[in-house]
């Protein structure tokens, strides 16, 4: 059963148009309208989500993302992307396809999890000093840009800036390294390409070799930047 979300779609389209996107298939997040939602209403709907992601957004399974304390805009637009089939192999696609969720529901869910406390860093960061170097300074030799430029010095998704283009840039700190590594590889393969942010990550990840991915992912999970 396909969810019918005419109003949601209309809102998406409107947001997309207002956001300055010309292509109807591209989600243009370069100037998105800030996402708001009702966290309390969202709390009523987290049954299915919490099974994998936990009630506080801290996922017990390393393959599933920690979503507690993640930026609301990022959460929302990721849900929209899954809903639109950005990542057909992911369980999220099937889950969202099976649910009858409205756009307001997505916003409320995002608001709820955004309000949670982020997961604390886990593990030892010292073996991943290379990752820190990459995060802070990049590597000119391999053409790797410093992640901090977009994701913030504190790897928090640029909370220091109120520019709208950073709204949907995710926080990376304390994220499961396995999840991060898989995500980076998906970007490197260009298998996710529904939003403008995905396109940014294509060229960023293009220069990341497996070693760099491992180091970065490991450091982000363990470190307190």
């Amino acid at each position, binding site marked *: 059963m396909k969810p019918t979300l005419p109003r949601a779609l209309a809102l998406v389209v409107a947001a997309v*148009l207002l*956001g*300055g*996107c*010309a*292509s*109807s298939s*591209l989600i*243009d997040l*370069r*100037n998105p309208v800030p996402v708001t939602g009702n966290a309390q209403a969202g709390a009523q709907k987290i049954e299915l989500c919490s099974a994998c992601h936990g009630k506080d957004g801290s996922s017990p399974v390393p393959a599933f993302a920690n979503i507690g304390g993640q930026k609301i805009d990022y959460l929302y637009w990721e849900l929209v992307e899954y809903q639109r089939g950005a990542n057909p192999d992911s369980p999220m696609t099937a889950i969202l396809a099976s649910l009858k969720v409205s756009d307001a529901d997505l916003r409320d869910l995002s608001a709820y999890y955004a309000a949670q406390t982020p997961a604390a860093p886990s593990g030892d960061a010292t073996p991943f000093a290379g990752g820190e170097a990459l995060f802070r300074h990049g590597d000119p030799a391999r053409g790797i840009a410093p992640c901090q430029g977009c994701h913030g010095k504190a790897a928090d998704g640029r909370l220091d800036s109120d520019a709208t*283009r950073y709204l949907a840039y995710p926080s990376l700190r304390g994220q499961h390294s396995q999840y991060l590594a898989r995500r980076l590889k998906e970007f490197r393969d260009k298998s996710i390409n529904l939003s*403008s*942010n995905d*396109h*940014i990550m294509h*060229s960023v990840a293009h220069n990341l070799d497996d070693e760099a991915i491992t180091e970065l992912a490991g450091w982000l999970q363990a470190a307190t930047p």
Partner: protein
Amino acid sequence: MHTQRRSTLLCTLPLALALATVLNAQADSGIGVDTWRANKLDPSAGAQGRMTDEFGTSWLIGGQRRSPTGNLYMCPAQPPQLDHFGDWIGYGVLEAGAVGTSGDDRNALWNRYADWDSGLILGLLDYTWQRPDDGSYANVRASRISEDDQYYQAVFGRAGAFKIQAFIRDQPNLVSSNAKPIWNGVGSDQLTLPTALTPGGSTVADVAAVSAATPERTLSVKRSKQGIGFDLNLPMRWSVYANLADEQRKGARPYGGPFFFNYPFPNNGGVLETTKPIDDHTLAINLGVRHVATQWRMDFSYSGSFYRDRYTRYTYQTPFALWAVVPGSASAPLTTGQMAMEPDNDYHNIKAAFTYKLPLNGELSLTASAGRMSQDDRLIAPIDCNGVFGIGLGGNLNPGPANPFLFRCSDWNTPAALSRRTADMRIDTSLLDARISLQPLDGISVRGGLRFNRDDYRNGYLAYNPLTGDYGYIAENGSQGSIVPGEVGLFNPVTAPSNITRVRSLPLDLQTIDANLGADWKLDNKNTLGATFAFNRYEPTHRERRRIDDNSLKLTWVNRSLDWLTLRANYTWKKSNGDPYEFDPYEFTYSIDLPGYVPPAGGTPSHTVEAMRKYDMSSRDGHKIDVMATIMPREDMTLSASLRGDWNSYDAPIGRQDYQTSSATLQWDWQPRDGTNLSAYAAWDRSHLRLSNVQDQQAGAGVDPRLGGPNYALIGQWWLRDSQRDVYAGATLDHRIGRVRIDANWNYTRARGMDRYNYAGPTALAYPALAPGAGPGGGAFPAMTYRVDSISVGVTIPLADRFALRVFDYYERGRVSDWHYSGFDTARVIDHRVYTDGGPTRYNANLVGVMLRVAL
């Protein structure tokens, strides 16, 4: 005939090319013309037609960024699909199809520089090859609208190393679409009358009938140009350039032909709007070497331009018979008039510029240039006639002492009648320019400049006939002397010592010295103030003044204190004056200055009124203001506004007294999303020109030059005010709906000119009897209007992968009214006046086109 010489000149050139070390210089913004080739179908030469990249400029920022002034940049084109040929890549576009015109598609204004023709056209062929390995590239671009409107160009080079470019282009210029020339041979150097008319012996009715029966035709000039250029980087930071271009012009245009006045003598004289043949070419050469190093820059260049005209003159037959004003006398029949064409001329110019970087962030620049413009074309005879010309007293057309107003053609229709056979005229020019700029303190820069420019005339001409001993010339093809005795234009110290006529050429040497001093002060990051004082001393020879000094002070302000506004404003105060104005410096060019001249009984008539101030010589005050603002109300919108005014007041009791122009514009540009662009503009300008003149009262014999004297009496003074008011507006839409692109364009121009006059008394008028009363009066000419509305709409629909279909329609409506041509739609022959061009006319015309666009 010059065809022989032309081919020789061109044939030696390839040899010159091979010998020259480096030819280079692509027409760039520093030297030469030919910077742009396109046509009315697409003035952007392909740029406008490219599909914009639906993804925009950057994944990081939405919309477009702005230039430092604040204008939004455009959305870039979609990256091309590449073809691969070994280590070369290629991409391009071919757009071809058919267009159809309808409505008044023969109209000259509609076709002016476009010459639309229904049929197949090549809209654009544009292909680029690049070799990434070493930066080599090549490009061909072509478009063909019609036989007369096409261009082809090719460039080949290596980025940063060299470039070779060649082009061929044809450009039409439709001058008239309703011409009714009564002559045969339009476009050639011999205009002959049809068999229905007898040269020198037809009646007005005959001529009018021929004119009425002549079908309307087009008069146009086509410019064809071929050019080639090289650009080369040499070792040691030198570079060399050369370009060579030859432009041919071919066609005909309305011109003239005098056989004396008609207005004072009904059924006499002849005012003939003949057609002048245009058949010439200009060869232009630019060569130079440049050296750019850290401390020094040098630039040496040579420019040459050689004009060659196929014809030295053209002749035309006159249909009308003349009669002499002396009762009982006979006017010698004249059948042929001649019109000299522009002489073949040569132009050479060499220039050397040195720039040296000074401490304090400064620069010193010295430029020296010398040139020569010369022509030595053979001179045509003073008249083209057979038999006699002039007036035969008592009806007797036998030349001799008893017939002093009659002359033998054999004494005048030959180059032997000239004081020399060729023109041998030359102007040598020299220029010296020095400028310095320094930045002594952070935020303060000063600059100064000195410039010296000189034109030296190297020769003069004395009109003297060694066969007869007469000085002067034959006025108006002999007609003047065939109607009024003594007015043939000759002075002879023995036989006609009181005739006043031009006998000498006017050498116009000049010298200008410019000096300027200026400073700019950057107050902070938001404001820059500047002031420049400039002085110009202009010293012409043989003009009304020997020295004219221009002073000006310009104040400028650039403001960026608000982040949504960039403001540039400047004000200039101008004042010019000079030495005392001498109203008649031209006596030395007249027979008045020759030995043996005897003033006529009443005295030598004055040349002009003493109070006349020719506006290039007069003292004047002026103010100029210029404001430009770029406003950024929203991230995706720009609003530009400008205001300009130029007020000049001339110290001239007679002559130009005021000239003011002002304008205001508003431009709006909106780019709501990548792939959509909406822009609009509105502009308004007006100008006022005020002049005064005074009609003489003594039938040409007045000797008192004073305004208010008996001849230039105040009662004859009149004033005219010419006001022009223009409104312009337009809008452009470029939008994408899915993959379909829609573009629309609307332009509107409305011009209205009014000429209002007033006069002190009826004798100021050409026809005093028409004045309603005896006192002062006034009136106005009908408004001169020009209004064009044009709209174009196009749709581009993508078909298969590389194919797209473009359908467009362009509709234009023009309304024009020029009172010069009032009545020419019914008759072009008015007494002894024959007009060819009917003037611009209204039109409604449409162009529809279907084009197939292929991404190559």
